């Protein structure tokens, strides 16, 4: 029978292979799903993995979806490396969008382009404030940050609902729950005419470099990681666990808020109840699949963006429900966790009776 045998040292090769293996497993299950749903599996795979790369507009859409995933994922990776489990990035994203909207609603006809910087800063601040609540409760009351940050996601959703159904509702909007469309001055600058990809993508790429420098070249980043890997050693070395907690949560909250600001002032241009599109939760998967490494997260955010775009294309071309994307994302994380076992264990074939009896 097959047995799992502990490896003497974790396998570096499997560390790289495991996400690819997980992707392969997800694709295989996807093919089975397509067949069960009565669709041609080859066509389904083409729609998911080939179509999203066809042409400049498609590539631009890929970047548009990847931007929030990349921004949030980088922040979460830092957080998880410090062993702080911020699961409420979705709520911090919403607060960032709300804060940015507040700034955008103050724009007038004569407002200059500087307001873009202001609303981005507000977005980051909004996300940070929401994450600070989690940090405060963990710091002062020892409350589990997983549950607190999650509960705050639901509170953030309700807050958003209150604002768009109430005080911020567009009076000329036929009673739809939405704010006014933001003025032109508040729009995040686009990179190419006719394509939706905007400066947010550039900011995200810069962030990849910045996070890499922080995690792997800065002493503060080192302290954070030691605190996560070996808390006792960190205490002995005098690294402040309180500082690590606050840094981790404020940075990840700020990144999520920034992503929210980019999203609401970029592709969306208004605040609606549909702003929380699940990016905060998808970014958790992005962070894990990217091995909590900035460069890995760059690739995994593009992969996750592929799932989103593929899901939308599957809906319009094949008539498959859009929620299929969620199924694939969950499956990917699940398979990744299973395949990760191979980093620490190898599979061995052990005959059940003979060898064991012989050895004893």
């Amino acid at each position, binding site marked *: 029978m097959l047995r*799992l045998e*502990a490896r003497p040292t974790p396998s570096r090769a499997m560390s790289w292979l495991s996400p690819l293996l997980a992707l392969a497993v997800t694709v295989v299950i996807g093919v089975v799903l397509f067949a069960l749903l009565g669709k041609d599996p080859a066509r389904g795979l083409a729609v998911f993995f080939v179509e999203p790369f066809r042409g400049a507009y498609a590539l631009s859409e890929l970047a548009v979806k990847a931007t929030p995933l990349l921004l949030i994922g980088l922040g979460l990776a830092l957080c998880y490396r410090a062993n702080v*489990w911020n*699961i409420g990035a979705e709520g911090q994203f919403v607060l960032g969008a709300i804060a940015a909207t507040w700034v955008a609603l103050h724009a007038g006809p004569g407002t200059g382009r500087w307001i873009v910087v202001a609303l981005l800063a507000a977005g980051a601040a909004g996300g940070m404030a929401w994450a600070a609540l989690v940090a405060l*409760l963990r710091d002062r*009351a*020892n*409350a*589990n940050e*997983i*549950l*607190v940050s*999650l*509960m*705050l996601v*639901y*509170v953030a959703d*309700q*807050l958003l*609902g*209150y604002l768009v*159904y*109430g005080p911020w509702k567009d009076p000329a909007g036929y009673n739809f729950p939405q704010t006014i469309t933001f003025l032109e001055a508040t729009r995040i600058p686009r990179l190419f005419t006719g394509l939706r990809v905007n400066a947010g993508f550039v900011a995200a790429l810069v962030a990849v470099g910045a996070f890499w420098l922080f995690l792997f070249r800065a002493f503060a980043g080192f302290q954070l990681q030691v605190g996560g890997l070996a808390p006792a050693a960190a205490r002995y070395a005098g690294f402040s666990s309180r500082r690590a907690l606050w840094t981790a949560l404020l940075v990840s909250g700020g990144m999520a808020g920034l992503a929210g600001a980019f999203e609401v002032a970029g592709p969306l241009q208004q605040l609606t109840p549909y702003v929380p599109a699940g990016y905060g*939760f998808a970014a*958790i*998967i992005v962070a*894990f699949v990217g091995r909590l490494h900035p460069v890995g997260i760059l690739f995994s955010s593009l992969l996750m963006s592929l799932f989103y775009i593929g899901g939308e294309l599957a809906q319009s071309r094949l008539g498959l*429900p859009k*929620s*299929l*994307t*969620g*199924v*694939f*994302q*969950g*499956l990917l*994380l*699940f398979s990744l*966790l*299973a395949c*990760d*076992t191979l980093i*620490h*264990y190898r599979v061995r074939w052990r005959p059940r009776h003979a060898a064991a009896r012989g050895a004893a």
Partner: protein
Amino acid sequence: MDAYALLVAATLNAGTVLAIAGLGLLINERAGIVNLGAEGILLVAAIAGFACAVHTGSDWLGFGAGALAGAAMAGALGVLVIWFNTNQYATGLALSLFGSGFSAFVGIGYVQERLTARPHFAIPGLADLPFLGTALFRQHPLVYGAMALAAGLAWFLARTRAGRVLRAVGESPESAHALGYPVRRIRLAAVLAGGALCGVAGAYLSVVYTPLWVEGMVAGKGWIALALTTFATWRPGRVLLGAYLFGGVTMLQFHLQAEGVQVPSQWLTMLPYLSTIAVLALISRNPAWIRANMPASLGKPFFPGN
């Protein structure tokens, strides 16, 4: 007076979902496994139960389908966490994310469906008592089932050999293993039982509490149930009380709206989540107390060493 009787009745009804799910999670956690996939399990069980009830017309088959779905999902987590030693928190999260996507996917065809008229229950004789009759004795059988479950679980954990073995596995799997108990199989059994109970809770939600299917209808009850086990310091009786407390907070929003309190509905909908945070903050203030009551091996992987 009658309004308050109805409020009590509604609280019991609302608390039952949390109670059954919380008791299921309690079984898991007493064995040392934290199942963060509770939300996903509740969602999948809700659609499974609803779909089964729609097709078969039977509520009880719906509960059964929910239990099966819950056990299956929990089983997947159990195999990964117990035999592959994956991180319990990450695996549970993966299960929740998968569950929300999968339930939305499967539930598409059921959004417009409606169940047959819901039966009204009343205990003959007791149901006609002046205040208590409306408050306590006109409930669905599962409401009384949840109370019986809490009592039964308390007795099981404290007084039976099997319950004590379960607790031993949760406190020190190494010692239980040294004594010759099949630790991994006991943990799997706990995970399956817990998952089945969460499944029943999810089916109750979609078949009895609000008899319909909407994507994401569980709205965080799985997470609240998880907070509940910590809040109740892993004792069944306290899980039941805590569940009714949260059920009461949920019902409060409707009661306040009925009373004509002029607060936008979203602020009232926030109440259960804010109270969960408040309770968590209050309970966790003394880490020594939590540590004294928590199953010692909760969340930690177990390596049999052979």
